[in-house]
């Protein structure tokens, strides 16, 4: 019972979060599904950022606080470059920039700090994050920029035969979700099927053993940070086209942290599932729980989604510290 109590509480919280709105949604299923889809959309993006995060953690044990700054940096690069050239050239160029960045981070930050404790590395990535925020805005500017993907933003009505009122879907969101899903799938293939992918998994399992069979650790790190950079780029472009490229992207991307807590630090599948849970959960909480709380406690507005992910992760840490898909860690003495 001692161990089950927190699980029980978390279960109740999740149930009321997901089922209670379902009850209200019964009268307007279309609206409920719209919220659900909106949440899934955001969730896919969280998954994407979290994936970059989990990759780096898996391969180098670094808790990369700078993932958000990388998203901002990449999005800024694409937005500003696209003002001068076609979008696809801008994205290619930005990809190259992210790879150079990965190489610099490995050279200047990771390599000198190898074998340091995790907390020191976390702080180093905080430094990288600050540097990138400042550097990005110096180079690219600090206004709000637009990324035009050239897809119509008008909402499309679907399933209107099925429900009263149908469901409004944004075509751009739809394309973006598919693009993100495709990226995730190709990453999975990359890790499962290619030699580099295998080497990467070997490094993730055991640094020293991998090194002893001749896997060059430094190169693997550059690759991982590059992949994380590209993932950040895709996330940045999609987000940027939705919200505009601006400084706050950096903080939105921080939500990848609770996502990986939920999914388990080392698990790719966990990052994806965790992202979806948090994306849907916080939208549901905002839309359905928010008004109730505002009324009950006489709040000056909603905004639950700003902390929902973190508090959910906190509760989760108390119940299942290794996350949904993570491995249990055993201390050796």
């Amino acid at each position, binding site marked *: 019972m001692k161990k089950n109590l927190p699980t029980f509480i978390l279960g109740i919280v999740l149930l009321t979060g997901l089922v209670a709105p379902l009850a209200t949604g019964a009268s307007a299923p279309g609206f409920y599904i719209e919220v659900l889809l909106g949440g899934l959309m955001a969730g896919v993006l969280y998954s994407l950022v979290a994936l970059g995060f989990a990759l780096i953690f898996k391969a180098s044990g670094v808790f990369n606080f700078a993932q958000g700054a990388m998203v901002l940096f990449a999005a800024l690069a694409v937005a500003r470059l696209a003002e001068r050239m076609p979008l696809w050239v801008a994205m290619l160029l930005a990809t190259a920039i992210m790879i150079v960045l990965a190489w610099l981070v490995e050279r200047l930050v990771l390599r000198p700090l190898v074998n340091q404790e995790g907390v020191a590395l976390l702080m180093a990535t905080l430094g990288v994050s600050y540097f990138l925020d400042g550097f990005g805005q110096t180079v690219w500017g600090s206004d709000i920029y637009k990324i035009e993907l050239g897809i119509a933003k008008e909402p499309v009505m679907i399933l209107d035969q099925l429900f009263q009122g149908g469901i409004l879907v944004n075509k751009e969101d739809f394309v973006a979700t598919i693009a993100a899903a495709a990226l995730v799938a190709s990453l999975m293939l990359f890790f499962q099927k290619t030699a580099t992918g295998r080497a990467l998994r070997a490094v993730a399992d055991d640094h020293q053993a991998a090194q002893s069979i001749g896997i060059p650790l430094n190169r693997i790190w550059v690759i991982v940070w590059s992949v994380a950079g590209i993932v950040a780029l895709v996330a940045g472009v999609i987000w940027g086209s939705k919200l505009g490229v601006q400084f706050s992207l950096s903080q939105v991307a921080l939500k990848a942290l609770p996502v990986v807590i939920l999914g388990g630090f080392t698990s790719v599948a966990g990052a994806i599932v965790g992202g979806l849970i948090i994306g849907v959960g916080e939208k549901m909480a905002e839309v359905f729980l928010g008004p109730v709380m505002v009324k009950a406690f006489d709040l000056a507005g909603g905004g639950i989604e700003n902390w929902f992910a973190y508090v959910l992760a906190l509760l989760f840490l108390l119940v299942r510290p290794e996350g949904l898909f993570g491995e*249990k860690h*055993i*201390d050796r*003495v």
Partner: protein
Amino acid sequence: MSGGATVERVTGEVIIAVEGVSLAFGGVKALSDVSFDVREHEVRAIIGPNGAGKSSMLNVINGVYHPQRGTIRLKMDGTLREFHDMDPHEVALSGIARTFQNLALFKGMSVLDNIMTGRNLRMHSNILLQALRLGPAAKEEIEHREAVERIIDFLEIQAWRKTPVGRLPYGLQKRVDLGRALALEPSVLLLDEPMAGMNVEEKQDMCRFILDVNDHFGTTIVLIEHDMSVVMDISDRVVVLDYGRKIGDGTPDEVRGNQAVIDAYLGVSH
């Protein structure tokens, strides 16, 4: 060090009883159905090849790991009491102290402070008194400092008292580790490879300290060691583990003659 004399010494009642302990990590079995006891004032050795589960055994006694099956009984207030899922703090309170295989010293702290942490169990002044370092707190600090200085003298590490432990050579760090355990004034001392990685001279010093502790304070010693000559020399009784099972138990001479033990060490296929 005379091996013959130690064997005949009188040992007392059972102080730790390990009964049918099994421990597994996921699917890996670290200990299977291990039982043995430790008597007061004896030097009890646990030996076995690498990966035999020796350190796991100490961790179970310490309460760091909780075994899936079996019980540990510890002597408290004169009687053996059964404990379930004890935490390491409770075990320390019952008078069991421990040193570590891979030096687990507090490397950011000085030798003095490391050993002082061993007195923490006995220091009770509350946080407000400590914050202002008022009378009782200051007095307590000095009393325990005196106890710690006696340990520092005993281990002959006076010259390094204010040195951060990270800067000491390995052999001295092992001594500090022992000192920290002694500061608890334990009735049982668990030593996990106290002589690993030492040269002959350092080993002799360490043996001397261990036997002195055993003789002067009557402290029961449970020790894991790889150096067989040391084990045979200083221990009263020996437990042999192999692949998490107990394969031998008895005086050094009995164990030496045990066929299963010889096989385990010479690597006969199972």
